[in-house]
């Protein structure tokens, strides 16, 4: 089991359920209360606070920082402006996704990258010849995520940072509780939200200040279970769940091109050489085999299937993460990898990887569901992703 983050003393006091999980070697709260749903509702109705310090963070600095980032990442990094954040993927030489993360641009000579998996070695291996310094600052920088419709109002009480002007996926550097912080309008919930980054020594001070400011707004600490539901609703994929890092797979077929996991938009085939470009270009010519889409499971059909065995319909009240076969007529054409009942949308939704011809919106499919000891096929349909996309996310 892991070690505590810089905020462990805070989160430990609050975690009544004693439900912890390992995240990148750290203790992370699964749910603070015995039931995670109030935490989910906090994200969607008021605000939720999360310790996201376990994220890996790297500083890339030097004359060639931009050239280097443009070479290791699939996106056209030269288009990212100072103070902008960008969601990026990086691939191996075969064009298969290694990891995804956010890139913070300070200047063309200074970037910060967050990653789900350790990336230092990969960046360093690729760096010979580039005038860059790559530093792992994972243990030096702590981070707090504040998500939900009231997050802006809460932050405004404790910082004079120009939050009204701060656009989605941009950041600003300011003070919060006399602490130097970086505030980015980012998050993993698909809602209005911010991530606040500071030196580990000052993390507790910031946490206390935010908690205090959030009292009148129904702010709650939220755990990973609530987050998982929110991210499925937002249509965000998760590494090791919806796709695998090409560095960790056991077989070739477990690897994915970015386009196969709905991340084609993060790939710029127009820019000069980047790691994996040739292979991606070649596959593009042949066509990508898979696509990752959103599906909605038919409520009436689910109810019918349960009724057939004399049971009331049962719903997944927390997000599940396993491979569930998806069929078209009588042939398996893919699998769902995570899903949940969305209390907000009142829909049963899931993320699924399908053979490309079956990925069009509206395609009729069935998803397997275990009902009373046996596998049943329940009607499902390809729908638009994100499932939940409130105007406040970007406004």
């Amino acid at each position, binding site marked *: 089991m892991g070690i505590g983050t810089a905020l462990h003393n805070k989160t430990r006091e609050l975690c009544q359920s004693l439900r912890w999980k390992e995240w990148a070697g750290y203790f992370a709260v699964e749910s603070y209360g015995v039931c995670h749903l109030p935490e989910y509702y906090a994200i969607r109705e008021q605000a939720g606070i999360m310790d996201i310090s376990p994220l890996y963070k790297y500083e890339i600095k030097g004359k060639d920082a931009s*050239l*280097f980032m443009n*070479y290791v990442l699939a996106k056209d990094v030269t288009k990212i402006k100072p103070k902008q954040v960008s969601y990026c993927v990086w691939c191996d030489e075969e064009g298969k996704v290694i990891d995804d993360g956010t890139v913070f641009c300070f200047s063309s000579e200074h970037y910060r990258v967050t990653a789900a998996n350790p990336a230092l070695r990969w960046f360093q291996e690729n760096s*010979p*010849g*580039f005038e860059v310094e790559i530093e792992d600052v994972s243990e030096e920088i702590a981070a707090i995520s504040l998500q939900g419709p009231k997050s802006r109002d809460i932050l405004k009480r404790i910082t004079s940072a120009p939050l009204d002007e701060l656009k989605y996926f941009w950041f600003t550097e300011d003070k919060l509780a006399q602490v130097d912080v970086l505030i980015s309008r980012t998050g993993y919930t698909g809602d209005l939200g911010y991530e606040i980054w500071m030196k580990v020594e000052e993390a507790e001070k910031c946490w206390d200040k935010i908690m205090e400011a959030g009292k009148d707004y129904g702010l709650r600490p939220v755990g990973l279970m609530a987050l998982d539901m929110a991210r499925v609703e937002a249509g965000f994929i998760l590494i090791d769940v919806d796709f695998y890092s090409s560095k960790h797979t056991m077989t070739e077929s477990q690897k994915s091109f970015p386009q196969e996991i709905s991340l084609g938009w993060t790939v710029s085939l127009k820019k000069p*050489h*980047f790691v994996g470009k040739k292979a991606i270009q070649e596959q593009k010519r042949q066509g990508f085999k898979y696509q990752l889409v959103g599906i909605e499971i038919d409520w009436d059909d689910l109810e019918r299937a349960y009724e057939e065995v004399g049971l009331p319909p049962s719903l997944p009240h927390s997000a599940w993460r396993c491979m569930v076969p998806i069929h078209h007529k009588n042939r398996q054409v893919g699998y769902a990898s995570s899903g949940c009942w969305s209390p907000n949308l009142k829909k049963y939704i899931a993320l699924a990887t399908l053979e490309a011809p079956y990925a069009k919106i509206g395609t009729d499919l069935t998803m397997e569901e275990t009902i009373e000891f046996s596998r049943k096929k329940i009607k499902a349909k390809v729908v638009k992703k994100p499932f939940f996309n409130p105007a406040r996310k970007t406004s």
Partner: protein
Amino acid sequence: MAEKYDVAIIGAGHNGLIAAYYLAKAGKKVVVFEKKENVGGRCVTEEITEGFRSSVCLDDISLFSKKVFQDLGLKNKGISAATDPLAISLLPGKALIQWRSPQKFAQEIATFSEKDAKEYPKYHEFMDKVAKNLGIACAKTPPDILNLPHSDLVDLGKYWLKLRKMGKRDMLEFLRAASMSARDFLDEWFESDALKGLLAAKALMGNALGPYSPGTAATLFLQHILSYHSASLGHPQGGMGKLSEALEQAGQTYKVEVRKENEVQEILIEEGVVKGVLLQDGTEIHSQVVASSLDPKTTFLKLCSPPKVSLKLRNLVKNVKSQGVSTKINLALKELPHIALVQGAEKEALLSARYFIAPSLEYLEKAFDATKYGRYSENPVIQFILPSFIDPSLAPKNKHVLSITAQCTPFRLREGSWAEHQDKFADIVLEKLGVFLPNLKDIIEHRQVLSPSDLEANFSLNEGHIYHLDHTMDQLFLMRPIPGSAQYRTPLDNLYLCGAGTHPAGMVNGLAGHNAAQKILKDWKG
């Protein structure tokens, strides 16, 4: 429109100039770009202080190839014949003098060990045999054993036959010895610390290696082979810069264009194919072939835009062992230093020799040890020569210059910078020398200290390595500087290497330039 040449050479050091000569002689339109205002690179003569001139980097052309010497017609260019003795090792109360003749040297050895005196001529004979038979490989492109084209197969066959010609016993002995440490190999032959120290010091100078390091016996063979096939030269009148001028003149006969103060900023690459070079002033020069005499790290990692070089190549290059460990100290002296152990009838001859402070293998190894910990040696290995004694034109009348190379001084210090440490190190060296040159301290008018960091800055030497990269088994012959580029041609189409970092070695012998030119011409024909 960009100017067009057949071949653009980066760097007008001796290798760049020699490659240019052969290429132009074969009818190619050749341009050489040189960053500095003078040619020669490390082979230069510069003023160290008013009135005193020195070949600031090195004063040694004892390994210069006979073939290149003859081809370029360097005979009447004021280069003297080799000195005799070749080297002198200074030891407490005693000196070991290496005369050119193995028999005469053996007589000197006898005062240290009767047994070694008997063995030495046999050792010399064995080394000569290796040199005689395998020396041809130095003036040729090493075989490409991965692809093994027909001609390389023939070469390999020839080398095998040459090996066999040595006789079964000597062949086996050579194959066994080449991978041994210098210590293990020399211990098998000799018992005298003084003798082993001198032989190893000569071979190991410049490398971040100690005589206990595996594979270092190879440096003894390398040294001997190059020396065997050398033109047996001593000193160019006017210093090493004169040699470089002579090389430049040789090229002029065939219209080699040398453009000084023209630094190459980038090697132009399109889709993996080299198209020419971009100069510092923004001028683009197009050429069929680009040949770089710079070290592989500078060539592949600094002059090429990294995304255009494969990751595999960049990593191979990055891992090349290229940490410089030598510091150069040049002294301007008021008068001739007194060398306590040098006297008698042969004093004149003795004063023109190369001197070493390297009393034993253990001493060498301990000096190297410091490198591992990012420190400089408190008991450095020292080599020095009095060039002004041979060539009085270098200093005012009756005054002298003393040229010292000392190690180990690793480029990467664990604590502090070379700017902070170099004077302290120079003091240590002078203290050591003072034991043998008692009046040295009192006669110094000026001293110039060039740490590895200065060598990098002043002579474009990556990490200050005097040979670009160590002469280790994995960085010699088929592997120098890296597999895939050891035949001078690199994985980047139309880019060749022709400098000290290529086969046969990083010394002043001209063979890298010669061989690279031959390879370029051969590939040109297809």
